[in-house]
Structure formats: structure tokens, C-alpha cells
């Protein structure tokens, strides 16, 4: 069964207003580009947290590997999304890329985080990903999600 998007409704509504308020397309492009940049930083920090946890011996190599697989899926979807943003694709065309990105991010934020058994690492990664969620909501709002 397809998972529902986990981005909080309030954040989506707020960001929708901001994005729809942008009257010129280049402004929307910049909002999307900056949102993608912000998410990419969060993902990289989450990756570093898992790597440090592995180096410290608090999570197993399997846990780190499965988390990294999910991260790579989001990063791959992010690269495709960036290409669409760069090409100034319409919201309709961009929608499929945004959907892939949201699906991958939500999977990372749920099953990916759940796969990390150490509570301290899990908390740190959750905190980092929660910070990125507002930017994910900007991307979702751009195509009316």
C-alpha cells in the first residue's frame, strides 16, 4: 500500500501560501532551488550522524548500510528534481519528480530511521530530518501536494 505523505499539514499550508504568493516563475524556481539545497544539507548531516555512530560502534554496519541505501534513494531523486527545477519544468511536469522525492524522503524518515536501533543516533537523525521537513514542504507545495 502506498504510504501517505508525512509532511505536517500546517507546514504545507503555510508554505503553500508563500509559494503561491510568488508572482514570478523565477522566484518559484529560486524557492525550490534553495529548498532542495537545504534538504541536501540535512541529508548529508544525517548521513554523517549514521557514519559517526558506526565508527563509534553504537550501530551495526547493516544498520548504517540500510540507512545509507534509503539516503541514496532520496539523493538520486533530489538530483532528478534539481534537473527539473534547472530546466524550469512546469508544475505538472515536475510533479512526478516531486512525488518520487517525497516518497523517498518519507521512507527515509519512517522505515529508514526505524532501522537505526540506537536511541541516541535515532534521535539525532530524527532531529536533523525534522529540520529539513519545512524545506521538503516547500517542494511539495510547489506542485500542490
Amino acid at each position: 500500500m502506498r504510504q501517505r505523505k508525512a509532511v505536517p499539514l500546517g507546514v504545507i499550508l503555510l508554505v503553500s501560501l508563500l509559494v503561491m504568493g510568488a508572482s514570478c516563475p523565477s522566484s518559484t524556481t529560486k524557492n525550490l532551488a534553495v529548498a532542495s539545497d537545504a534538504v541536501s544539507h540535512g541529508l548529508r548531516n544525517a548521513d554523517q550522524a549514521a557514519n559517526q555512530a558506526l565508527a563509534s560502534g553504537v550501530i551495526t554496519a547493516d544498520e548504517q548500510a540500510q540507512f545509507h541505501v534509503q539516503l541514496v534513494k532520496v539523493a538520486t531523486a533530489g538530483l532528478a528534481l534539481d534537473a527539473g527545477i534547472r530546466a524550469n519544468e512546469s508544475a505538472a511536469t515536475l510533479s512526478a519528480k516531486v512525488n518520487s522525492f517525497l516518497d523517498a524522503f518519507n521512507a527515509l524518515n519512517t522505515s529508514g530511521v526505524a532501522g537505526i536501533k540506537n536511541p541516541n543516533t535515532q534521535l539525532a537523525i530524527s532531529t536533523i530530518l525534522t529540520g529539513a521537513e519545512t524545506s521538503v514542504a516547500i517542494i511539495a507545495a510547489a506542485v500542490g501536494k
Partner: protein
Amino acid sequence: MDPKTLQLILFIEQMVALAAKSVVDLKGVLAGDKTADEALADADANYQAIIDGRS
């Protein structure tokens, strides 16, 4: 303090530092004045680093 407790404290410190860095990064990106092209180039570099295992 026994070594195991010290190791745990150091690890938690690392995690807190990373979470804090993430907030600073986020603030820097959102408050920054990058152009769309610059932001996309930075995002691509981060995504690619994750894919390549260079985080």
C-alpha cells in the same frame, strides 16, 4: 568515570554537535543570498557526495 560511560558521553556530544550544525546549515541556506543556479549546484554536490559515500 569508566571508559564506556566516557565513550557514550563523547558520542552523544558528537550527535548533539551534528544536530546543531544541521540547524546552522539550514539557517545559512535559507537566509543566504545564493542564486537559483548556485543553490542547485550546491544541492547537486551534496546529493552526489551522499551517493558516492563521501559524507
